[in-house]
Structure formats: structure tokens, C-alpha cells
């Protein structure tokens, strides 16, 4: 082969030595192997649940065999959706440190002094992480191949679904990489990327659905979003494959157009990233990592705008309360919040105009969204409490003073609480307004929400502080604090139901456990507390309660979460002086 051709096809011109270095490093990281094991284990568990519920149900063998094709469809659907969601989440997490990691280690400027160009940095980073994700997709292919034997699953569907997953993964990966140029902390990149994806994939379609359905054909709306939104694309691909005719506009090459659009959007983001990465490097070279932040003050410009504040009370609490609530991005956050507030008010107006304001489903939806928002920030913020001290190397200095460990813990607790609370304002405001608005939310339901939020906040702050003392890096602590609720509120209930299915016993215990999940509790409170005229009744998966019984039950579960949170916080305190230097 001609050397030029070999050079072009080899792809080295695109990724440079960055790709090679990233692969070399990632092969030495134990967590990548653990990730693969965890991925396969979780997938296998989910498939077992589907298999058990579809095929092994105590009927005759002939009946079980007849259910194989159905089981095959459900299992392939599960694998496809599992891959679709997991790969995108992992892409966001993996690429959140792509550029910010280089800035943090002060290597971006060094890279720029070599012949490596911005294109190679961006694509080297992107492709090395994508390769890890492709490996995850590849290790589930044998499962797909085996399940195909059951029949009823065309190869075309598998290929098309994988392509949609891959293009969506490339897009969110490019988005995360793009944010990592601007944001120094990877957990901020993860949050911002998740919010962006939430707005693009959920909020905009939901808002558009409300507005558009009054003016145009709903089918046109669905068709449009199936081109630009991978969730829609995958849903309609599945419908088209397994129920032909249900999606009349879905054609043979529809998925290709969608993937093309997603890749074009990714290319635009990557082009922007390539253009910006050099500027970030130059800023770092000019003034260290700190100078990469445009709003930083230089030594020539003393920060005279704010007077010196005197320390009062516990110094840790003083410091925590003194730091600005929204940090240096306050104007961006405020303007984005205002921007989102306008469509939100339109949604409220629309729901009101349609006469659904006293409908429990409207409030269940609102509360679910606000709970998710509150929990997102409450999971992230406390996990940064100690690791941020470690990263700024002030932790040993602080522990070298005579401040007691208890005072440090309480200072960090109040600091985390202060920064978390604003994320709960939308939920509390919603509940308060519609409780004061006669006839909509029952006061007991409102009190219940307050209890649920209290328990959740204490629990997450405690666990966040614990993981923060356990970890060296903020991102690790944040990820661990995400994994805990995922284990407690997703995996454990799933395992419980699976175990009861296998044992063919009552699932009362599993249902009672699900009842104790704050998210479920808040939804059940809205379901039973709206409208007021229906009286207060609580109908969880297991608990059926009325009136003040609900409050008693919630006080018990809140105390339980509070106690677990306090236990975590106490363990955090015990760990303060262990492994101080990481």
C-alpha cells in the first residue's frame, strides 16, 4: 500500500500519540476491567429477570417453548435500551475529564509545545474513550447472537439500534468533551452535560409537544423528533420492527438520516472544541491552570470590590457560608435558570388552561421532575466537601490546626446543606403554592414532602461527606455518591423482586422496601393528596394509609434515612485523619 494511503487509513494523523497514550493508561486501570465485569453482571441480571418473567412461569414446557420468540424480543429490547442508556451515561462520565484533566495536571500547555495539534488532542481523547464503550457494546454481542436463536428478531434491527446507540454516544461524548474545555471540575462537566441532555432530549420535546399539538398534526411532531432525538428514534425503530404499520412514516433509511444528523451535530461540537482547546492551553501556559478561568483576578488587580470579612463563629462554617452560592458561573446559571423559567411558566399556564391543575398526574409529574433536580444536586454537592480541600491541598493544613474533627464535620454539613437547599426551592415552592391554593394539594401531603426532602437531604449529605473522605478526587466521590442511591433504590429492589419471583413467594417485603424510597413516596403523596377534596390517602406499592398515619409512617422512614446519613457522617469523621495525603 502507498505510504500516504497507509498514513491516511492508519488514522494517526487524526488521533496522534494521544490515542496510543490513552489506551496504554486505560489498560492499566483496574476500574475499566471492573466496569466491564459490572456491565455484564448487570446485563445478565436484567436478562434473567426478563427470562424468568417471560418463559419460566410454572407452565408446561410446550408453553414455555412457545414463549421463546416473545422472550427473545423482550430480551433484545432490554439489551438495546440498556446499552443505549448505559453507554451515553458512561460517555459523559469518561469524557468529563478529557480536557479538564489535562488542565488540572498542567499538561495541556506541555502538549501544545509538541507537534501534536488540537485536532489530535480532541479526537485522540474522544476515540480512546469511545473504544472503551465499543468494547462494552462488543462484549454484549454474543448475548444478542444467542438470543437471536429464539427467533423473531431481525439482524437489521440489532444493527440499526446499535448504530443509533453509537451515534448518540458520540454526540454526548462530544458534548462532555466540549464542556470539559470550559469547566475545570469534572463533576460540574457531568452535571452540566446531564442537564443539557435532559433539556435536549426531554424538556424541549415535552414543551414542544404541549405547544405543537394545538397547532399541527402530532404525527409530524413525532416524525421531526425521531430525526433529531435518539430516544424517539429508538422507540420508533422498535415499534416499526415489532409492530409494522404502527409508525407509518418510519422507512428503511430513517435511522440512517437520524444517525447522520447526530454525527453532524457531534462534528460541529468537535470542530468548536478543536478551535477552543488551543486557547485553553495558551491561557494555561500564560498563567497556570488558574488563568484558564477568565474571571480570575491577576496579581495586578487586587480584589478590592469586596471588603474583608471578619471571621465569626466556627471558622469552617464561616468559610463555607462565605463562599458564593453559585460560584463564578452565577450569571450563567441565573440566566440559564431564567431562560428555563419562561417555558416552565408556559407549561404551568398550559396545564392550567387545560384544567389539569387539580389533577394528581400533573402534580406527580412536576414533583418527579423537581425531586430529580433536587436529588441530582444533593448527591453531587456534599461529595465535593472534603475532596475539594484535598485537591486544593489545604486539607493537611486544616487538620494541622486545633479545630476539632466534629467542628469540621458540622461546618461541612451546614455548608453542603446551604448549597443544596436552593435546588429544592422549585419543589418546595410548587408544593407551597398549590397547598396555599385552596383545593389542590392536601396540607398533609405537603408536610409529607417536607419530611421526605429532609430525610433525603440528610442521607445524601452524610453519604457524600463519607465518600468525600474516602476519595482523593472529587469525581470519584461524586460517582460513588451516585452509585449508592442507584444500588439502594434500583438494584436492591430489582434483586428483591427477582428473588421472590424465583422463590415463588410473596413480594410484600420487596413492595414495602419500594415504599420506603423517597422518590416513590413523593409520587405517592401527590397521588393521594391531590385534590384536597378526595381526602388524604396514601397508596404506595405496599402501604395503604390515611390521614395522619401517613405522617407517622414518613416520620419513621425519614428518621431511618436521617440515621443512616448521620452514621455515614460519623464514619466520615472517623476517617478524617486516615490517609490524609492520599
Amino acid at each position, binding site marked *: 500500500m502507498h505510504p500516504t494511503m497507509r498514513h491516511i487509513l492508519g488514522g494517526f494523523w487524526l488521533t496522534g500519540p494521544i490515542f496510543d497514550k490513552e489506551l496504554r493508561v486505560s489498560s492499566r486501570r483496574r476500574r475499566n476491567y471492573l466496569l466491564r465485569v459490572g456491565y455484564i453482571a448487570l446485563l445478565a441480571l436484567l436478562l434473567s429477570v426478563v427470562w424468568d418473567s417471560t418463559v419460566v412461569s410454572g407452565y408446561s414446557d410446550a408453553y414455555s417453548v412457545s414463549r421463546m420468540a416473545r422472550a427473545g424480543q423482550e430480551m433484545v429490547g432490554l439489551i438495546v435500551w440498556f446499552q443505549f442508556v448505559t453507554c451515553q451515561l458512561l460517555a459523559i462520565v469518561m469524557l468529563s475529564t478529557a480536557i479538564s484533566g489535562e488542565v488540572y495536571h498542567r499538561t495541556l500547555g506541555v502538549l501544545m509545545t509538541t507537534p501534536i495539534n488540537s485536532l489530535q488532542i480532541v479526537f485522540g481523547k474522544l476515540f480512546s474513550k469511545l473504544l472503551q464503550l465499543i468494547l462494552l457494546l462488543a462484549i454484549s454481542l454474543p448475548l444478542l447472537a444467542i438470543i437471536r436463536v429464539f427467533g423473531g428478531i431481525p439482524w437489521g434491527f440489532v444493527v440499526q439500534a446499535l448504530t443509533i446507540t453509537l451515534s448518540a454516544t458520540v454526540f454526548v461524548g462530544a458534548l462532555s468533551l466540549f464542556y470539559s474545555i470550559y469547566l475545570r471540575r469534572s463533576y460540574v462537566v457531568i452535571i452540566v452535560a446531564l442537564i443539557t441532555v435532559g433539556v435536549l432530549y426531554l424538556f424541549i420535546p415535552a414543551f414542544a409537544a404541549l405547544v405543537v399539538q394545538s397547532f399541527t398534526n402530532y404525527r409530524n411532531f413525532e416524525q421531526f423528533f425521531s430525526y433529531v432525538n435518539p430516544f424517539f428514534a429508538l422507540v420508533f425503530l422498535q415499534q416499526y420492527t415489532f409492530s409494522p404499520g404502527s409508525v407509518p412514516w418510519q422507512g428503511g433509511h430513517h435511522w440512517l438520516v437520524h444517525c447522520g444528523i447526530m454525527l453532524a451535530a457531534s462534528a460541529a461540537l468537535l470542530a468548536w472544541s478543536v478551535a477552543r482547546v488551543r486557547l485553553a492551553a495558551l491561557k494555561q501556559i500564560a498563567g497556570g491552570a488558574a488563568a484558564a478561568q477568565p474571571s480570575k483576578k491577576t*496579581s495586578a488587580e*487586587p480584589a478590592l470590590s469586596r471588603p474583608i470579612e471578619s471571621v465569626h463563629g466556627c471558622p469552617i462554617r464561616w468559610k463555607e457560608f462565605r463562599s458564593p452560592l453559585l460560584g463564578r458561573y452565577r450569571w450563567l446559571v441565573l440566566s440559564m435558570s431564567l431562560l428555563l423559567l419562561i417555558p416552565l411558566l408556559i407549561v404551568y399556564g398550559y396545564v392550567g388552561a387545560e384544567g389539569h391543575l387539580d389533577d394528581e398526574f400533573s402534580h406527580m409529574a412536576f414533583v418527579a421532575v423537581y425531586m430529580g433536580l433536587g436529588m441530582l444536586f444533593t448527591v453531587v454537592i456534599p461529595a465535593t466537601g472534603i475532596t475539594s480541600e484535598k485537591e*486544593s*491541598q489545604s*486539607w*493537611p493544613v486544616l487538620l494541622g*490546626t*486545633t479545630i476539632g474533627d466534629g467542628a469540621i464535620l458540622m461546618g461541612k454539613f451546614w455548608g453542603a446543606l446551604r448549597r443544596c437547599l436552593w435546588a429544592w426551592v422549585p419543589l418546595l415552592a410548587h408544593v407551597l403554592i398549590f397547598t396555599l391554593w385552596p383545593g389542590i394539594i392536601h396540607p398533609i401531603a405537603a408536610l409529607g414532602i417536607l419530611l421526605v426532602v429532609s430525610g433525603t437531604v440528610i442521607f445524601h449529605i452524610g453519604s457524600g461527606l463519607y465518600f468525600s473522605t474516602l476519595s482523593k478526587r472529587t469525581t470519584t466521590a461524586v460517582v460513588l455518591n451516585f452509585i449508592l442511591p442507584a444500588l439502594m433504590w434500583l438494584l436492591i429492589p430489582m434483586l428483591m423482586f427477582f428473588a421472590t419471583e424465583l422463590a415463588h413467594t410473596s413480594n410484600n417485603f420487596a413492595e414495602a422496601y419500594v415504599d420506603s424510597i423517597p422518590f416513590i413516596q413523593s409520587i405517592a403523596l401527590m397521588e393521594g393528596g391531590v385534590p384536597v377534596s378526595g381526602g388524604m390517602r396514601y397508596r404506595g406499592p405496599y402501604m395503604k394509609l390515611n390521614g395522619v398515619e401517613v405522617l407517622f409512617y414518613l416520620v419513621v422512614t425519614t428518621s431511618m434515612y436521617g440515621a443512616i446519613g448521620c452514621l455515614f457522617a460519623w464514619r466520615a469523621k472517623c476517617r478524617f485523619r486516615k490517609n490524609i495525603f492520599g
Partner: protein
Amino acid sequence: MIEIKQLTKQYGSLTALDHLDLTIKEGDIFGYIGPNGAGKTTTMRVLATLLDPTSGQAFIDGLDVTKKGNEVRCRVGYMPDFMGVYDDLKVFEYLEFFAAAFKIDRKKRQGIVEGVLELTDLTSKKHFTVDSLSRGMQQRLGLARVLIHDPKVLILDEPASGLDPRARIEVRELLLELKRMGKTIMISSHILSELEEICDQIGIIERGKLVFDGTMDEIRKHMGVHSRIKVEVIGDPQRALDVLSPMPQIGSVTIEQRALTVTFSDGQENNGFLAKALVQGGIDIVSIEPQKLKLDDAFLELTKGIVN
């Protein structure tokens, strides 16, 4: 003031400190020297109560660092080899924060902070945010921080690293001022020659063991290195070498760049004898200059190149 007995610290299979014994007298400046990874920082972290030893004991002002952590922290000012900064705090607030952390009465804090700012020549920077200071200024701020609670003992881990010559001289002057104030100072550094000028006592550590502990004069005696005298002569130095070599009083004579380096066999300096011998031999002398053993030389000799 500082007493270390059989101190051992292991990180898995790595022994960072190996039955270390060390005593530092009150009011002394102790220079702690060793190659990278020798155990200097580990010793300092144990003394600062931030690391528990695997075995052995360490006392500061008679207090066991592992048992009386809080009391020890009141008496110690520890400055690590990195600068822990808070992004949003101003210089004054940073120092006041640590004053509050050491439970200094609120009414006294302002005066104390002003005092250490003046001592470290940072008064003009008190409105600046900590992270906007240059490295030299940050080092000074680190010194100001360790002084805020007026500790008896200062443990300074490479306080001059990364500083320019002027800033290094300023730090050295500041340390001498602190010695005059009666502080006991333990300081580690790679700028060995600077320690030589300010330290009362030197400790050289290698692979977790103290290979030497004493004054500079004791180092010289310990190493058996005789004082050297550099002699410059007019004309061919070989002639001077021929004159001096046969004399029994002369230990060795070498020629280095047209100058002679002479040592006496009894280890003493005897410039008068040298001058007389050369003049009597018909050699014209330009200069006779005694060469002191530098700390860098002692370090290289004592560590024998076993640098990690």
C-alpha cells in the same frame, strides 16, 4: 524540644523511617537533609500529627505527638511542601481564618494578623486573594500562617523551594529573625548551602535512617576531611608542587586550574607555614585562601550517591 525515639513508618513493604532517633534543642535551627524519598517529609508529617508512626515515639515539648495531638498542634506550626490555598479568601481573611481555627480570641485576632503580616512583609497584599499571589508571596503567606498562633516549634518542609534568589534570601532573613524570637525550627531543603549558613545543627537522613546528626564542625570531624587551602602562585604551579610535596607536614597537593589545593597531614590549617615554605622555595604567592567544607560536599560524601 523535639525528641524522636526509634521512630519507624512503613508504607506497605516500603520503610520510610527506620528506627529513627533524633533530638533538637530548644531555640535551635535544625537543617534536615536527605535525597528525595529519604524520609524527611514523613518525619515532619509525624511531628505535625498528620501521620501515625508504625512504631516508636516522637515528643514535642515533652508531649507525645500520637497521644496529645491537639496540645502538640497548639505548639507546632507546620508548613508543608505545598501551599494549600482557598480560592476565594483574601490574604487577611486567610490568616484570620487560621487564627480562628487555633481558637485565638476574636478581639485579639486583628492585631495578631496585622503583626504577622508586618513580620512577613505582606501588609500591602492583605486585600489580595490568596490564589492571585506569586509563589514567593504564597511562601511568605505560608510562613505567616504558621506563625499565627505563636508556636514554639516551626516545622518547615522545603520553604525555599521554587523561590528566586532574592526571595530565598528574604526567607533566610525571616528564619533568622524567628530564631532570635526563640523559636525552635526544623527545616528541610535542597538548597543545602543556604542551610549551612543558618543552621545550628544538621541532620542527614538516607533510606529512613539518620546517617549523621551534629554541627558543621562535627560533620567535618566525622568525615575526616581536612581543611583545604587554595594557593595561587606566579608562574608554573608545578614548581610549587615540587617544593611542597616532599614536606612531611603536607598531606596532599594537587593542581587545579593553575592553583594548588593543599591539605595538612594533621588536618589543621597552617597558612604561615605554607607561606614560609613557598617563599623559601623561591615561589611568588598571589593568594592563600582557606577552603571550608561545604554542606553540599558533606551531603554528597555522606549519602554516597544513594539517591532515590
